[in-house]
């Protein structure tokens, strides 16, 4: 058995904390990018690119395998064991449910003749991704 430093439990807790921090940072940067998009729609592509990059970061922490090349394949398998995969699936289900609810709300607005602002779609994407990250962080940090 390879030597662990830190232990899998510490890595799991750190992963939860970093995912939580990244979700917070992604929320802040999404807010800034979407505000700028609403204020300067002519530079929309640049703001949307920044928005997408910041949203990708928490998703990497949710669905990526921590540790990079520092640890062996066996250690990576323990860090992403079936409990973690179940937690990733739970987080993905929550994110998908949020996305579907927001799409439903958007569709309802369309039926009611309410015009959605330009920032509505990216804001819905941010909510779905940040929701996914928050659920995963909560599951990782929860003391079972």
């Amino acid at each position: 058995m390879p030597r662990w430093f830190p232990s899998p439990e510490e890595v799991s807790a750190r992963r939860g904390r970093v995912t939580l921090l990244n979700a917070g940072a992604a929320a802040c940067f999404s807010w800034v990018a979407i505000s700028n998009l609403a204020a300067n729609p002519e530079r929309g592509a640049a703001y949307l690119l920044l928005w997408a990059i910041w949203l990708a970061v928490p998703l990497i922490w949710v669905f990526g395998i921590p540790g990079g090349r520092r640890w062996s394949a066996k250690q990576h398998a323990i860090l992403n064991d079936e409990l973690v995969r179940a937690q990733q699936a739970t987080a993905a289900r929550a994110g998908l449910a949020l996305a579907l609810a927001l799409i439903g709300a958007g569709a309802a607005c369309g039926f009611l003749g309410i015009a959605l602002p330009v920032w509505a779609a990216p804001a819905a994407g941010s909510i779905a991704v940040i929701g996914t990250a928050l659920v995963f962080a909560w599951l990782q940090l929860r003391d079972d």
Partner: protein
Amino acid sequence: MTDLLAHLKAKRTEAGLTQGELAERVGVSRKTINTVENGVFVPSTVLALKLAAALGTTVEALFELPPGEG
């Protein structure tokens, strides 16, 4: 809500193993063993078989369905 009764803790204690030692034997984290023992997480067939093999027992001795569901 749990839909599986786990006797893992009793069998593990009987075998004189800690959660960490059992986790190392089956190749999962200690938290996974803890969640299975507490009924928070229902293990896959593969993990259940590995747990049974590591404890020298059968899957049926480790887990059972709640009364009325079998």
